[in-house]
C-alpha cells in the first residue's frame, strides 16, 4: 500500500523534501490551499522529480461554499444551482475545465468532482453516475478516478453502504478517491462500525476491479491494507489527516489555530507532546519510543540523544516529516502477499502497540487525544468483521486485485 501526500497548509516544502528523499511518490494537490499559480509551480517541481507524480483533488464537496481560495480557481463555477447543474452544459464545462487543468498540471489521473453525500440516496447516486458518464464522453487520455465523499452518518449506515456498492458495481472507473468524514470530528475514530464500513467499501470497490485511494487519513487507516487499498493519503496538519467537510466552507485564515508539536511513536500508533517524552526520559523508558530502524528517517534523532527531549528544539517541521516518513514505511510494510498475511500483520501491529501503550500508560506517558490505547480494539473489531464478511472473497482474489 502506498502513502500519498495529502497537500495542506504549509506543505510545499515538505512535499518537495520528502518526495525527493523518497525517490519519488505522489502528492494530492489541494486547490483550497494553493492558488492557480502555486498549483502550477508545485506540480512542475514535483513532476520533475524522479518518479514524482501529482493528482488534483478538485474539492467540490460542498459547492455552495464561499471559501475564498476555492472559489478563486478558474474551474469553480460562478453560479451553482443544484438541480440543473448536473444535467447539462454546466457539468460539461466544469469537467472540461478540470480536464484541462489536470493536463496542464501533468497529473497521473483525473480525479472527478464528487459531492459530499450526507446520505447515500438516489439523487446523490445519480449525480455520481452523470459525472462519470459525462467524463467518459470527454476526450481525455487520463484514467478516471471517481470521488466518493461520505458524511459520517452515511459512512456508518450499513444499508446505504450496501446500496453504494451495488450501484458502483456498474460504474467501473479506473479508480476511486474515497473520503469519509470522521464521526464527531474526532481525529482517531472510536466507532468500529464506521471503520468496518470504510474497510467494506474499500474491499468492495477493489474486488470490483478498481484502484482505491483513501484520502485524508492518519495512521489508523493502516488497517486499509487489509482491504487491499491501493494508497492512503496523509499530511501534516490534523485537517488533512481526517476529512473535514467544514474546512471547505470556512475562510482560510481561521483554520490553523493550535500549533503544538507532537512526536509520532510508530510502534505505539500514538503521538505525544514533547513534555511526555521528558517524562519517559525521566522514567528511563524513552528508548522504547525510539522509532524502529526501518521506519527511521533521522528526523527525530535529537529527541533520543540522551538529553531532555524538550531541550533539543524538536521542530514542527521535523515532527511532520518524521510522521510522514514513518507512515510511509508502515504503509509499505502493511501490504502482504495475501489477505491472511496482511490481516495478521495488522493484528500483530495492534498487539505490539497495545503492549507498549500499557507500559507507557503505567509510567504516566499518554498521547492524550492522540493516544491509540482506546482505538486498538476499534481496529481489531473492524478487522474481524472484514474477515467474516469479505475474508473468503479477499483470500480468493487478492493477487488478481
Amino acid at each position, binding site marked *: 500500500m502506498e502513502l500519498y501526500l495529502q497537500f495542506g497548509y504549509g506543505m510545499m516544502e515538505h512535499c518537495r523534501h520528502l518526495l525527493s528523499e523518497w525517490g519519488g511518490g505522489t502528492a494530492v494537490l489541494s486547490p483550497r490551499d494553493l492558488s492557480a499559480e502555486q498549483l502550477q509551480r508545485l506540480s512542475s517541481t514535483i513532476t520533475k522529480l524522479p518518479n514524482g507524480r501529482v493528482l488534483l483533488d478538485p474539492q467540490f464537496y460542498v459547492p455552495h461554499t464561499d471559501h475564498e481560495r476555492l472559489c478563486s480557481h478558474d474551474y469553480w463555477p460562478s453560479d451553482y444551482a443544484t438541480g440543473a447543474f448536473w444535467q447539462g452544459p454546466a457539468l460539461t464545462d466544469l469537467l472540461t475545465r478540470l480536464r484541462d487543468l489536470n493536463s496542464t498540471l501533468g497529473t497521473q489521473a483525473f480525479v472527478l468532482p464528487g459531492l459530499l453525500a450526507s446520505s447515500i440516496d438516489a439523487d446523490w447516486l445519480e449525480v455520481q453516475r452523470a459525472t462519470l458518464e459525462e467524463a467518459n464522453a470527454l476526450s481525455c487520455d487520463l484514467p478516471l478516478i471517481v470521488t466518493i465523499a461520505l458524511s459520517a452518518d452515511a459512512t456508518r449506515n450499513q444499508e446505504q453502504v*450496501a446500496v453504494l*456498492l*451495488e450501484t458502483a*458495481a456498474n460504474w467501473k472507473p479506473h479508480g476511486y478517491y474515497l473520503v469519509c468524514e470522521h464521526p464527531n470530528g474526532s481525529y482517531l475514530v472510536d466507532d468500529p462500525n464506521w471503520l468496518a464500513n470504510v474497510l467494506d467499501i474499500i474491499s*468492495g470497490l477493489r*474486488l470490483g476491479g478498481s484502484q482505491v485511494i483513501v484520502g485524508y487519513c492518519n495512521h489508523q487507516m493502516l488497517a486499509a491494507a487489509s482491504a487491499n487499498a491501493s494508497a492512503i493519503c496523509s499530511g501534516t496538519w490534523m485537517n488533512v489527516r481526517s476529512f473535514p467537510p467544514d474546512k471547505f466552507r470556512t475562510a482560510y485564515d481561521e483554520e490553523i489555530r493550535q500549533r503544538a508539536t507532537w512526536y509520532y511513536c510508530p510502534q505505539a500508533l500514538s503521538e505525544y507532546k514533547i513534555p511526555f517524552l521528558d517524562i519517559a526520559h525521566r522514567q528511563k523508558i524513552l528508548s522504547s519510543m525510539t522509532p524502529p530502524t526501518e521506519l527511521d528517517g533521522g528526523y527525530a534523532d535529537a529527541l533520543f540523544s540522551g538529553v531532555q527531549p524538550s531541550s533539543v528544539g524538536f521542530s514542527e517541521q521535523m515532527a511532520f516529516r518524521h510522521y510522514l516518513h514513518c507512515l510511509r514505511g508502515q504503509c509499505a510494510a502493511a501490504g502482504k502477499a495475501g489477505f491472511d498475511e496482511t490481516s495478521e500483520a495488522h493484528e500483530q501491529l495492534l498487539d505490539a502497540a497495545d503492549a507498549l501503550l500499557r507500559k507507557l500508560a503505567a509510567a504516566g506517558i499518554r498521547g492524550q487525544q492522540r493516544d491509540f490505547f482506546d482505538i486498538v480494539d476499534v481496529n481489531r473489531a473492524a478487522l474481524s468483521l472484514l474477515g*467474516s*464478511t*469479505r*475474508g*473468503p*472473497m479477499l*483470500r*480468493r482474489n487478492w493477487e488478481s486485485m
Partner: protein
Amino acid sequence: MNGGMNITATWLATQFPELSNIQPLSRGGQKQVFSASHASDGEVVLKLMHPQQDVARTTRELVAVAQVQAARVPAILDQGTVQSSVGACFWFREQRIHGETVRGVLQRGPFQARQLLQLGLHTLESLVVAEQARIVHRDVKPENIILAPTDDFWLIDFGLARHLGLESLTATANVFGYVTWGYAPPEQCRNIKQEIDARADLFALGVTLYECATGVNPFRNGAANPLEVLKRVENDPLPRLSLQLNASRDFADLVQAMTQKRRDHRPPTSKDAHDWMKDICDQEQM
C-alpha cells in the same frame, strides 16, 4: 378430488394416448405429477396443472426451463392444454430423471466430501446456464436436486423461477416472498424483487451444501416457526465448515461467501462461484 378435477387412469389414457404406464408421482397445491413412457421420448414426467391454477406462473416455468438448456436440467419435450370436467388444464412433459432427491440421500446421513463437491459443481453448472438466460431458479434446495444413478446431480422444478426481464408475478405488496424458508436469502424472504438475482440461488445452494456437509440446516433446525427461521437467516451466520479435504479451507470459504447475508458480499456471479468450485475440484483431482 383434485381442484375439483377427477383424474382417473382412463381419463389420462384418453387425454394422452401417446403415453403408456402412467403412474402418479406427487401432488402439490398447483399440479399433479405423473411418470410415464413415451414412444420416442422414453421415460418422461407429465405435469398437469390444476385448472384454476395460474396459467401465467405455469407458462413462466416452461419459458424458464426451456431457456435453461443445461446438461443436468430436465428438458421440456412438449406442452399443451386438455379439457377436464372443470376447465382447461395446462400440461407439459419433460425428461424424467431417475434417482433420489438429495433430501432422500441426506436422510441416511451427511454427504461424503467428494460427493458433496460433485453436488456443488453440477448444480453450479446448471446455475451458470440459468444465469446466462437471465433465469433465477429461486427454489434451490435438497428436494429439488436429484442424484441420478450416473452420480450426476440434476436441478429440477423451476416452478418459482423468474426471468429477470419479465414482470414479477408475486404481488409487490406482499411483505414476504413465496419462498422455502431456510434456503432463501434475506432479500427473497422480504420480497425485495429488485434485489433478487442469481446471487439468491447462490445463497440457497450454499445453505444446501452446508446441510449436506453437516446433516443440519442451522436456519431451520429446531425453529419454532417460519418467523424464527427468517430471523436466523437475516442475523445468524452459518458456522464455518471443516471437512476432510485437501481443499477444505477453500470449500469452507466458498460456502461462507455464498451464504453471506448481503448479496454484494457473495460471489458476484454464478460463473465466479462455479470457477471457484472447479478450482476446488481440481485440487481434489476430481
